[in-house]
């Protein structure tokens, strides 16, 4: 059983002037226990609405939803103590210090001072903990939001776009933090539209577009789904190689200092044979690197939903 399970989740918003917007459209999803789960999709795909549904902030129009085995509509209060979250920007009282903000939240579930110190240390905010939050940078606010989410020592963390607005150093920090949280055995559910971020942190990934699931599974498998479209060939005489391949009806183009050959990797032998027969020797031959972005574009291109 998954830590988070969604079946046929649907949420639509009615507009004041009539009509309705479907934010989530029959979404099925199962998030396994432990590790980092990436939840990918372009802006407006329904990621935040899904997270809000999981946290009971928004009522779905249809479908079932369980969190840590509890039905969200009726049993959320029983499990919320094990769930930490940030939804969009972490909302904090700007005039209060970082520590005071955590104390206010911690009071709800009687979190002790030592825990507050620990989470501040963990997100590297101990030095600024007694400064007003309004003086914090965006990255510090984001880290304080994560600290707030960690106060409950949660087994599940839902982080909505945690790298939003962060500078490169901040992104690296948050990435490392997410990885370490996942490595501790917690389930970290991270939504993002920044594909490279998810690729570097997640063990599993689900891609949604227009409120529907496009693809889900281990990151490697999802990457494999769009992999192997071509080969990268490096050799000394690129124009000669291009001519030879063209003579053999093998489509290829020059791409920088390599040839990009439009053949699946399992036909690499044919390329080497053809080139070697004309005394052109390959110095490098590898499948084209496929990143998550490419896969995402590939998977969503039928719906015209690229980021």
């Amino acid at each position, binding site marked *: 059983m998954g830590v988070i399970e969604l079946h046929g989740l649907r949420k639509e918003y009615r507009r004041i002037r009539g009509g309705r917007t479907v934010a989530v459209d029959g979404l099925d999803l199962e998030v396994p226990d432990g590790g980092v789960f990436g939840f990918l999709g372009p802006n407006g795909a329904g990621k935040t609405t899904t997270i809000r549904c999981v946290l009971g902030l*928004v009522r779905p129009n249809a479908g079932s939803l369980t969190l840590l085995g509890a039905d969200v509509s009726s049993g959320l209060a029983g499990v919320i103590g094990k769930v930490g979250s940030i*939804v969009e920007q972490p909302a904090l009282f700007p005039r209060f210090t970082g520590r005071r903000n955590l104390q206010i939240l911690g009071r709800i579930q009687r979190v002790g001072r030592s825990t507050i110190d620990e989470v501040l240390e963990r997100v590297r905010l101990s030095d600024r903990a007694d400064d007003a939050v309004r003086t914090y940078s965006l990255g510090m606010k984001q880290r304080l939001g994560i600290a707030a989410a960690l106060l409950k020592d949660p087994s599940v963390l839902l982080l909505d776009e945690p790298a939003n607005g962060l500078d490169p150093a901040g992104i690296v920090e948050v990435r490392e933090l997410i990885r370490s949280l996942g490595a501790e055995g917690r389930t970290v559910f991270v939504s993002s539209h920044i594909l490279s971020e998810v690729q570097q942190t997640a063990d599993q990934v689900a891609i949604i577009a227009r409120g529907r699931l496009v693809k889900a599974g281990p990151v490697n498998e999802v990457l494999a789904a769009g992999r192997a479209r071509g080969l990268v060939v490096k050799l000394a005489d690129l124009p000669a190689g291009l001519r030879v391949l063209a003579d053999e009806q093998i489509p290829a183009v020059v791409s920088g200092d390599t040839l990009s050959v439009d053949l699946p990797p399992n036909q690499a032998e044919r390329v080497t044979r053809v080139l070697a027969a004309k005394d052109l020797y390959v110095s490098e031959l590898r499948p084209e690197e496929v990143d998550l972005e490419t896969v995402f574009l590939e998977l969503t291109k039928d719906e015209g939903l690229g980021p």
Partner: protein
Amino acid sequence: MMLVGGVLLIVVAMVIAGANSHKPTAAQIASADAAFQKQFAECMQGQVLGPGPQLPPGYTSLAQFCADEAAPNVDTGLQFRDAALLLQHTSTFVVLLGVALAASLGGADWSAGTMTTLLTWEPRRIRVLLTRAVVVAVVVVSVTLFLQGVLLGSFRLAVALRGTSLGAPPGLIGDALQTGLRVSAVAVGFGLVALAIATIGRSTVAALGVLFGYLVLFEGVIAGLRPSIQDRLLVRAGGVIVSQQPIFDQNGSFSSGLSNQLPRVLLGLTEASVVAAVYVVVLMVLALFAFRTRDVN
């Protein structure tokens, strides 16, 4: 900030009042006291109310009525016997302060966006709102009692320096305390109404705008156009609770105790308490319903 502002305003007001007052001379005091004793005695003999046991509404004893009727006439400005009256007359501002505090407490989480965070810690929304109502009640009572205490204390000081305690009845402090408690109770009631509107409107500004619009414009206009429905208006109910003076049917007549025929009471203390409670309960129920069912985006 409101607390500091309130204290400063009270101090400034008392300095101005003290500057416009002066201590009566011994002769003035003796003359006023003699006149007071004479009028009080006449009143107690029934020379003011006339025959019959009926006391004017709001009075529980003849002595209480006579003490009010036969006020010592020293035109010195500040008189400590007006302490309870002072709290009554400043009650509008104290209640409005309570409204502003409650609206701020109710709307702050929506304005700051912290309601989302709060609900991810405590998803039982009814509990969240009821806890908030308790907090509003405690804060409003504390702040309004404190400010009324400051007002009373500074008034006592101003009287000691520039006024007189002549004619102050023995139970004055107790009366003033009761008045202060009634004012705070009304402030809590109005505060809960403000909290309910802030919860429904999800904004402090909405709560203040709607409530002031309703109280000042709607109730003011309605009370002017249809006096007969004053018994259902929140402001009138609050006024009756604070002053303990009922509102009479204006079509009746009351001629200063010379007649036993009293006009019909349109809104008495009990009815006023019920009216205020109905406003609070209905709006809180509406707020609970809205808070429980609406999405938090």
